[in-house]
């Protein structure tokens, strides 16, 4: 123990090489099975201090984590952040398990060269699923580093502690060795167990035990977002800002009638635009120019003769009748107990209602954009995309280009907003098709009408509900059934070109999957049945009303129906809406959330609405609604003002009680909830895709209005319920789910008028009020 008398450095600060060689440790970069780095990847690798890189395998610890020679930790995240701070949460989890400073952790995401496919952004599972492999990998990395340090320091591992990446002996901090000294810049030759799944379900596990929650110091703190400075100072490259040498600009030319085919293209119509080319594959038509403005002009000017197909759509006024009468392609009862028909027969009273919800558009802030470059004489390619699932986009582009997956490098660059399956993958597909045809790097961007009229839509639906009450007003039967277009009419990822608009126009035929959901709640009604039916789309290929995932796929419409219906049943039973829910909710977390929202909002018990139909002026009301979503529980009290002369609704205040398990970052969580509440209000009050028999007529912000500052709430009061012993669950969508119902219930309280069709637009409300 003479080491005590000597300077610590001399004893313990050994050169990295010596450390590694001396112990026959986990790595030597010379032994690393490297592959050749493309130039772009090499630049990124150099920036991250990665000298060499093994093949990207989930089973390699090194796939998940890297510690550079300067101590910087890089976490490779195969999911995505779309502006809600998921990457910060990942950094927190990694810093926590590894015992390093958060500032030293960088998260790389959305790059198919550096990250495995954890499913991209999907179903608000960024933290819920996405953090688990990273957490386990970080814990495993700490374990092997501490074990290694134990050999160097000559002390058992359980007598060692780690602070900011320095391993030292408990009680003698002069005996220490840093992560950097042990591994900095080198490769972890350590295997982890992989469950074999790709996408959302991917999990890897090491031998290490993860840190007990009680020891957390980084998780739970409000660290700031990484992406904000670049966005407010304008230094972030968005996908629209990607420029590569020799790149040309492409715009699609869309048919005036959905489903029309090209009869003739008169290229002389654009001959004044020098150097502009027309490319075509069946009914996929695009113009290509060196200058973006020329491409835009050519898109306007190009004379295309299109066929005149039978109008593909019903009259929009008849949409819900169309749905009601359509033959179902699939049906399913998802949840049920008891015997509903018999119980209804024996009921003293039966309450029935039907609700309707329109098609809605992602209407992202800008129409989608992508850049595709074919390299090495057609052997490899790169796609820059704003899609929230860049790995799947890469797969789709590889199929179009006839390349192996690994030959295509997918790079995510922030796009103009993403709330599910929007038009991003269509832009990438179109860019790849044109790049293949002309052999140059192609930047494809939509125009505004494509962002609104041609993106995959949130599906339209009807929802029917029945409840039986006994003589005392107890619910003895409950039946709920939805019927609408599938949420997977085109897949929620873009890996199959036939699911993407340009290749559909180009002739590939998509296959729909039939899927719908039921409300997620814990009402313990005896004799309960919840199910759905889906109907086929109007037509298959190049359909602007094709439906897919839009933030909280089906949540807003399902709860718009089911949670309004709970209020209708409560009214029939002459019970306050919150009291009614508390009586039937079974899950203790749901009950806690409901109680929290009642308390925080200062809810005043009422069994009847305060307002009455008729009269003028502005009236106010409050409504409640609740939902579960993948483990997260949300209850909302909405306070609205209704201007009875204009029908305009102002959602003045929301109180939101939110339980998403253990909280990783309270500030980013709060902001995520706020965004959901505002976007949800917009969808509840304003948004409806309009169409005529030929085409979608919602083509811009005038024909598809959304909420603006004048209609934004005055207050959003968020109550975060932290559950340290529950795993973290998603927050990206849950609070949007019960929102429309909370508003509709508040409108009922204010006016005594029940609005069973969304959105609660001024015209519709005015119409309802005048009939009341």
């Amino acid at each position: 123990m003479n080491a005590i008398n000597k300077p610590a450095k001399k004893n313990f600060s050994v050169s990295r090489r010596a450390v590694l060689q001396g112990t026959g440790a986990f790595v030597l970069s010379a032994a690393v099975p490297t592959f050749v780095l493309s130039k772009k990847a090499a630049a990124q690798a150099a920036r991250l201090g990665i000298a060499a890189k093994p093949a990207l395998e989930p089973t390699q610890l090194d796939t998940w984590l890297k510690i550079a020679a300067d101590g910087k930790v890089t976490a490779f995240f195969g999911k995505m952040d779309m502006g809600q701070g998921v990457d910060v949460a990942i950094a927190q989890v990694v810093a926590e398990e590894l015992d390093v400073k958060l500032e030293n952790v960088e998260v790389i995401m959305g790059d198919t060269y550096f990250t495995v496919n954890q499913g991209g952004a999907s179903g608000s599972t960024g933290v819920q699923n996405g953090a688990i492999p990273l957490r386990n990998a970080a814990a495993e990395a700490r374990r092997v580093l501490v074990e290694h340090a134990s050999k160097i320091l000559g002390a058992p591992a359980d007598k060692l502690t780690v602070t900011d990446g320095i391993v030292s002996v408990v009680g003698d901090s002069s005996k220490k060795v840093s992560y950097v000294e042990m591994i900095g810049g080198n490769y972890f030759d350590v295997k982890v167990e992989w469950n074999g799944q790709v996408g959302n379900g991917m999990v890897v596990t090491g031998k290490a035990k993860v840190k007990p929650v009680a020891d957390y110091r980084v998780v739970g703190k409000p660290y700031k977002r990484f992406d904000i400075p670049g966005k407010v100072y304008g230094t972030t490259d968005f996908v629209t800002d990607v420029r590569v040498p020799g790149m040309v600009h492409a715009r699609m030319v869309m048919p005036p009638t959905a489903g029309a085919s090209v009869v003739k293209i008169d290229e002389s119509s654009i001959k004044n635009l020098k150097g502009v080319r027309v490319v075509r594959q069946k009914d996929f038509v695009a113009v290509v120019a060196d200058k973006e403005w020329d491409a835009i002009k050519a898109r306007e000017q190009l004379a295309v003769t299109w066929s005149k197909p039978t109008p593909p759509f019903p009259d929009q006024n008849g949409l819900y009748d169309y749905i009601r009468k359509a033959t179902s392609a699939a049906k399913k009862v998802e949840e049920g107990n008891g015997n509903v028909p018999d119980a209804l027969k024996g009921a003293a009273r039966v309450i029935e209602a039907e609700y309707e919800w329109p098609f809605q558009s992602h209407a992202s802030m800008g129409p989608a954009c992508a850049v595709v470059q074919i390299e090495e004489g057609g052997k490899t390619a790169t796609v820059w995309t704003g899609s929230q699932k860049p790995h799947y986009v890469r797969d789709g582009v590889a199929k179009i280009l006839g390349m192996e997956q690994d030959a295509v490098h997918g790079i995510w660059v922030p796009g103009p907003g993403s709330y599910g399956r929007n038009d991003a993958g269509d832009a990438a597909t179109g860019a790849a098709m044109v790049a293949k045809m002309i052999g140059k790097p192609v930047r494809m961007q939509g125009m505004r009408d494509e962002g609104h009229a041609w993106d995959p839509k949130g599906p339209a639906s009807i929802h029917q509900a029945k409840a039986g009450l006994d003589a005392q007003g107890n619910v003895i039967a409950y039946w709920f059934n939805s019927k609408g277009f599938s949420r997977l009419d085109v897949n929620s990822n873009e890996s199959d070109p036939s699911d993407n608009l340009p290749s559909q126009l180009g002739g590939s035929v998509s296959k729909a999957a039939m899927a719908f959901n039921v409300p997620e709640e814990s009402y313990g009604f005896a004799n309960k049945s919840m199910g759905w039916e889906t109907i086929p789309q109007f037509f298959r290929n190049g359909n602007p009303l094709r439906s897919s995932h839009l933030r909280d796929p089906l949540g807003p419409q399902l709860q718009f129906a089911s949670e309004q219906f709970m209020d209708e049943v409560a009214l029939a039973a002459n019970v306050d809406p919150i009291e009614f829910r508390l009586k039937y909710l079974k899950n203790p977390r749901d009950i806690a959330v409901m109680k929290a929202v009642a308390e925080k909002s200062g809810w005043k018990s009422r069994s009847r609405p305060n307002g009455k139909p008729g009269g003028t002026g502005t009236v106010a009301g409050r409504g409640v609604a609740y939902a579960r979503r993948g483990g997260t529980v949300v209850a909302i009290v909405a306070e609205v003002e209704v201007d009875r002369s204009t029908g305009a609704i102002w959602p003045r205040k929301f109180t939101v009680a939110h339980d998403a398990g253990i909280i990783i970052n309270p500030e980013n969580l709060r902001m995520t909830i706020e965004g959901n509440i505002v976007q949800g209000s917009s969808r509840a009050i304003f948004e409806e895709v309009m169409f005529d028999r030929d085409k979608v007529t919602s083509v811009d912000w005038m024909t598809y209005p959304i909420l603006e500052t004048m209609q934004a709430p005055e207050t959003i009061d968020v109550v975060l319920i932290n559950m340290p012993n529950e795993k973290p669950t998603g927050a990206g969508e849950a609070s949007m789910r019960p929102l429309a119902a909370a508003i509709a219930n508040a409108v009922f309280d204010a006016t005594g008028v029940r609005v069973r069709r969304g959105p609660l637009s001024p015209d519709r409300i005015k119409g309802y009020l005048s009939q009341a």
Partner: protein
Amino acid sequence: MTERITLNVNGKTHSMTVDPDMPLLYALRDEIGLRNPKFGCGLAQCGACTVHVNGEATRSCATPVSAISATDKVVTLEGLGTAEKPHPVQKAFEEEQVAQCGYCINGWVMTSAALLKQNPKMTDAQIREGLAGLKCRCGTHMGIIRAVKRAGTMMG
């Protein structure tokens, strides 16, 4: 039909030979190579393309490049401020952690900077009214309103 056009952008002079009807947006993005403004709608409906022309918030997607003369001073988000020398509005947006996707932020920052220059003491209602017409699809309006108020205090 092209014309020689000279623009003064962020204090620098740029000359280009372009279609005079081309919107200023494309001159700034494609000819000069700036990341901001952004294309959101091309229809003067969203504000993503806002720049300052002689201090006035101007939607560059609906302004023909020929309407701008060489003596007009065009300022883009890049020219408004930097992380080292931020404009108060940028600082306030950073402090309030505003932006989800961030694609709209150019429009909000440029428009509110011009508004606050005229009146740093705007009330909540004036802020909401002054920013009407701008879009944020992600729904970050609450943060935006907080940030503009904060910037007003910094500027007032």
